[in-house]
């Protein structure tokens, strides 16, 4: 039995626990061989694709029952020189949380917008544009949400020196442990 | 001696209306199971507002509109008999009162228009639409009372109800009284009809740009308007008053009833308010008028 998050409940009753995810994993692997799929635990599905296959993967997942795009998040792999975009999808009937991951180049990050599939992705992509500097082709509204008139590199990137910026702009006093 | 009446009556009206302001906050607080401010809190508020070091005006029309509104209310007060006090009574003074009661909304609309704030415009439009709503049943009910007594003098109407409770307008023209009672919260600006100065929605509507001494004028005008409406209701339907004290007691009872409704009800939209005012109260007032005209023969 599955609770809302897709994790097993406390009774440990297995029922048809892994059939869903393995099923999906097989289907994705069949249709998109360049995609690496793993099932880390029941209720989770992680599918990794190169950049150009992301839209097809999302379309595949959407038709498979993942009708809700919960979030688009970004991870800054500064040592590898890449930004990893993670699209979190949720299937209400299967109770599975799928993550579609892809990587873009860190120096000039560009990505195709997914607003044709999920219209509300416009806001998530707007936030990522503001915080990481990723340019989404096809998103008509990539204006800042919070940082009007921001000069400087996008603040969520790892090379952004947070303490120095806070000290210089606002005069924060760092606490010295004595 | 009518000079004394002209000076005493507005002072009495101001005193009673400020007292009613304090009572309203205290009673509402008690209904909400808390203690509330002291009864003289409006005095503290007025002192604070007058002691402000700067007052923002938006031009001459702004000042003039506010003064017009307050002047209109003070003039109306002079024509409403309070117990035995009626310094300026004459035939036809009910019609004079009805005309003078149009001045305050006009003055507030002028001032709010000069303030150039969209919230003020919304507040003014809501206020005027609401006035359109409650004037219809109110005037029909007034027509019924005037037809029944055969006079347009408010003093004569009040005195005709003196002999006994059975002579009250409430008993002799019950449908008209019920119609006016239903729109009384709308005339007083109490919930469920307080959308004209809705703090949460339109930042106090007409009063949004009023600070300092202008707010004192506006608050005083609002309080006087409450006094006028309740005094009219008491004179028309609750038998006026043999003397000032019984009159004020009756006013207190009506105000308390309005406060109880105000504390319980939420706010309705202006469209719903208009629809309400033009449905049952208008029908009742119309029916009351027909009954009075038929029984008069």
């Amino acid at each position, binding site marked *: 039995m599955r609770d809302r998050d897709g994790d097993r409940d406390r009774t440990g009753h297995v029922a048809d626990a892994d059939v869903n995810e393995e099923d999906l994993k097989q289907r994705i692997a069949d249709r998109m061989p360049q995609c690496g799929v793993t099932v880390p635990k029941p209720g989770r599905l992680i599918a990794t694709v190169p950049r150009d296959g992301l839209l097809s993967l999302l379309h595949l997942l959407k038709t498979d029952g993942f009708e809700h795009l919960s979030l688009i998040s970004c991870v800054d792999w500064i040592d590898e020189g890449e930004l990893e975009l993670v699209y979190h999808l949720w299937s209400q009937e299967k109770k599975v949380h799928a993550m579609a991951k892809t990587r873009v180049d860190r120096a000039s990050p560009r990505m195709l917008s997914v607003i044709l599939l999920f219209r509300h992705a416009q806001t998530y992509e707007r936030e990522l544009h503001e915080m990481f500097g990723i340019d989404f082709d096809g998103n008509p509204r990539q204006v800042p949400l*919070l*940082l*009007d*008139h921001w000069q400087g590199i996008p*603040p969520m990137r790892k090379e*952004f020196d*947070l*303490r120095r*910026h*806070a000290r210089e*702009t*606002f*005069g*924060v*006093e760092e606490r010295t442990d004595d | 001696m009518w000079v004394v009446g002209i000076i005493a009556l507005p002072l009495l009206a101001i005193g009673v209306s400020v007292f009613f302001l304090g009572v309203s*906050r205290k009673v509402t*607080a008690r209904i*909400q*199971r*808390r*203690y*509330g*401010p*002291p009864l003289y*809190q409006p005095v*503290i*508020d*007025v*002192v*604070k*507002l*007058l*002691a*402000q*070091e*700067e*007052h*923002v005006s938006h031009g001459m029309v702004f000042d003039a509109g506010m003064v017009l509104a307050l002047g209109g209310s003070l003039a109306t007060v002079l024509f409403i008999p309070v117990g035995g006090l009626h310094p300026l009574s004459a035939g036809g003074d009910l019609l004079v009162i009805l005309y003078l009661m149009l001045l305050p909304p006009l003055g507030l609309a002028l001032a709010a228009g000069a303030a150039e704030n969209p*919230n003020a415009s919304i507040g003014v439009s809501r206020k005027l639409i609401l006035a359109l709503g409650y004037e219809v049943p109110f005037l029909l009910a007034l027509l019924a009372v005037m037809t029944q007594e055969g006079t347009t003098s408010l003093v004569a109407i009040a005195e005709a109800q003196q002999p006994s409770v059975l002579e009250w307008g409430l008993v002799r023209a019950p449908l008209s009284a019920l119609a006016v009672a239903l729109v009384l919260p709308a005339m007083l600006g109490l919930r469920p009809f307080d959308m004209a100065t809705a*703090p*949460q929605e339109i*930042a*106090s509507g007409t*009063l*949004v*740009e*009023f*600070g*300092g001494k202008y*707010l004192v004028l506006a608050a005083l005008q609002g309080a006087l308007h409450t006094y006028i409406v309740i005094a009219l209701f008491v004179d028309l339907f609750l038998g006026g008053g043999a003397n000032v004290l019984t009159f004020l007691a009756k006013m207190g009872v009506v105000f308390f009833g309005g406060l109880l409704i105000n504390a319980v009800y939420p706010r309705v939209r202006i469209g719903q308010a208009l629809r309400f005012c033009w449905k049952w109260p208008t029908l009742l007032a119309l029916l009351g008028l027909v009954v009075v005209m038929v029984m008069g023969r």
Partner: protein
Amino acid sequence: MDRAQIPKILKSPANWGRKYSLWAVYFCTGCGIIEIPPVVTSRWDAERFGVIPMATPRQGNLFLITGYVSLKTLGAIIRTYDQMLNPKYVVGFGSCPVNGGMYWDSYNTIKHLDQYVPVDGWISGCMPRPEAIFIAVTHLWTLIDKGLADGYKRYKDNYDFYCANQRRVLPHLPKFACGTGTETATAPATLRMPT
């Protein structure tokens, strides 16, 4: 009202009015605003103290900055504060206006509210309890009595200082748009305190 107060009221009725009729501008700054509804409603009744929330800044004279102040919020706070009528009192509520609070190293929140808007008192805590708000109100009464709640006078006397600080973090605020765009804002070294 006890009789000991009557001489104080007669000496300065203006102070009496300002103390017991503090109208707080209904401006919900940050997460701290969640503490205001319990204070204003029936359980911790603030109306006994004369404090009621007022919808428009033209009528309010107490400004509670509750919680963190991001740059966008600071623009709105400055506009609201400029619209309020003197005398006006600002109270920093929570630890974020004091020194940045838990957002002390954030890229988008200001750390010392006192640099941009004059503050008359601080309430520390994250969040302060409603009782702390009432203690702050009574302290503000004492300050008003002694004439020490003069943030608005500091603002007028040191307007250049405050505007320079505001301009440094918010150069595109509409109130700075009227001047020539090429002048550089240099902050004067010290804040002149009222004598």
